[in-house]
């Protein structure tokens, strides 16, 4: 987006944020639910974007971490703990499990890593389903309470939407800071060339584990919000297809682009809703749209924009060069 002037970018950002706050005020219950879901899935996709887009580690387990976070928050809030504490526990838990999941990444890469994480995803699903003393098994956990934030009850859809939006804002700022910190640059070095990163003195072992752990922790945050959002969880939403969906969101939006997950989640959550008027055909059309987009631009939506900006910059640069050249020639 570097083609925009900076004040213009800030203004655009403020308009979008204001829109996200003001416009949903007269949405109905269902519209608010979908928008809250978008915020929650964006958080999970941002985590995967850190692992995959920035650090280059393929993971098909992000859905499992959403599940871990959701169960942690559902079980704790049902026992009377406040949501912020539950979120903290979800973060710590998914960070720790994500760290462990990073160990295979030290040994294998690419499709092998994809399949290890895929297996982990299935194992997590089996645990959610079978350990019914903890997770309620196939009957799940119902009546998950919504929190009081600063003394305000968030039982109604609109206040809880603001909880989700606020969490998204906090996570966005944290990720923004992270990818500009030395850590973020180490992640990108890891993605671009692990050997060179190592020769530059980056502890690739530690950063690989870190990339998994931080990415998974954000999945846990998303899950911890998902549970009070739906107020009922069972194992089904956290099966392998959620991991695949999240991966699709990251790639379709644009892996390694900061705003990629926002757009990817928008397409994955909102597009099927907009296509709902087509009745039974909507998932089919969604699948065709995703395939078409990827054939057209494998780097996702932001990839298209990026190429357009790059082309414009090259054009502008070569125009400047031409001017400079003609000036030189007239001076001679």
């Amino acid at each position, binding site marked *: 987006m570097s083609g925009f002037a900076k004040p213009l970018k800030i203004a655009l950002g403020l308009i979008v944020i204001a829109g996200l706050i003001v416009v949903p005020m007269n949405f109905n219950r269902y519209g608010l639910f979908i928008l809250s879901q978008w915020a929650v899935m964006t958080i999970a996709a941002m985590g995967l974007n850190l692992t995959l887009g920035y650090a280059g580690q*393929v993971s098909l387990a992000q859905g499992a971490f959403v599940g871990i976070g959701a169960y942690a928050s559902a079980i704790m809030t049902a026992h009377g703990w406040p949501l912020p504490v539950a979120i903290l526990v979800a973060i710590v838990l998914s960070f720790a499990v994500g760290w462990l999941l990073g160990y*295979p990444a030290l*040994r*294998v890469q*690419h*499709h*092998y890593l*994809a*399949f*290890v994480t*895929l*297996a*982990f995803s*299935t*194992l997590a699903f*089996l645990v959610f*389903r*079978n350990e019914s003393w903890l997770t309620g098994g196939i009957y799940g956990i119902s009546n998950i309470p919504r929190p009081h934030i600063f003394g305000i009850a968030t039982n109604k859809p609109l206040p809880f939407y603001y909880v989700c939006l606020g969490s998204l804002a906090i996570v966005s700022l944290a990720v923004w800071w992270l990818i500009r910190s030395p850590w973020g640059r180490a992640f990108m070095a890891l993605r671009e*060339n692990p*050997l060179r990163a190592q020769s530059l003195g980056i502890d690739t072992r530690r950063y690989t584990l870190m990339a998994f752990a931080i990415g998974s922790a954000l999945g846990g945050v998303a899950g911890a919000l998902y549970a009070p959002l739906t107020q009922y969880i069972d194992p089904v939403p956290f099966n*392998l297809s959620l991991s*695949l969906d999240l*991966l*699709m969101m990251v*790639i*379709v939006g644009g*892996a390694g682009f900061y705003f990629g997950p926002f757009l990817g989640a928008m397409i994955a959550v909102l597009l099927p809703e907009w296509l709902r008027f087509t009745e*039974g*055909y909507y*998932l*089919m059309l*969604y*699948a*065709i749209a*995703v*395939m078409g987009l*990827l*054939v057209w631009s*494998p*780097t996702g939506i932001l990839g298209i924009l990026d190429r357009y900006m790059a082309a414009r910059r090259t054009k502008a640069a070569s125009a400047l060069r031409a001017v400079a050249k003609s000036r030189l020639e007239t001076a001679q």
Partner: protein
Amino acid sequence: MSNLFDLLVAGLATGAIYALVAVGFTLLWQTSQTINFAQGEFVMLPAFLMLAAMHVGAPFWLAIILGILLSMILLGLAFKMLLVDPMMRHGVLPLAIATMALAIGIKEAVKQFFSAEASPFPSIVPTGDITVLGHVVSLQSIGVLVVAILAVFGLTTLLNRTSLGHQMQAAAQNPMVARIIGVPVERMILLTFLINAFLVALASLLITPIYLAKFSSGEVLGQAAFIAAIVGGFNQVRGAIAGGLLIGVLDNLAAAYVSTQYRAAVPMIFLIAVILFRPQGLLGRAEERTV
């Protein structure tokens, strides 16, 4: 003991089908670096193509031929030309995602245009039981095993004994050199896609009578085939066959001896162990690391 024997036969029969599906999966990977996440749906679809043909009045044998032909056109030719070819140069991941979308598309299309209910499917093998070595074994298991073994035997003969097979292997192992010595690499790649389409149609024909035709039946099968391919060796046809049989038997034994709740976990843990300790698979050769 008799129980173990039955479990082994049933396991080998499912394993043989996994092997068929996994072989196609490794063929696509070898020739075009395609990880086909829709492979399970590729097995589900031909059965519905055949059912559709029977709905408009075709006899079973004609429906089978039509189903196999349509499968080769849609899942072989069209899949390669419309999805794989335009995306091949962009690397493995975007194409893998596109095949995930394809899996959703196929599933939804079948649900929408055919039925969300499970439909019965006629068997090409006679049903009933026979007695082998004092054990009662279902004819279906034996039939599935025999057909699958014949198919795999035919394929390995084609690959290892014929000049066409040698050209295919050359194209898969080193496209550049193959091109220099005059192998029509493009045509060989297309051939592997057609073979994959044929194998999934055959697997569909064998497995659907047992598990019924359902739009969602591809998920489990696709996952089993992935595991089989990786366990056996991603870059080896014989690895995929061994992996398929192994996973089939393991799955059946796990269901009987571990717990029905965690039966699905056993192949998964096995998969993780194999990847961590022998990433190239039990029979695979190590791939050179590209930096």
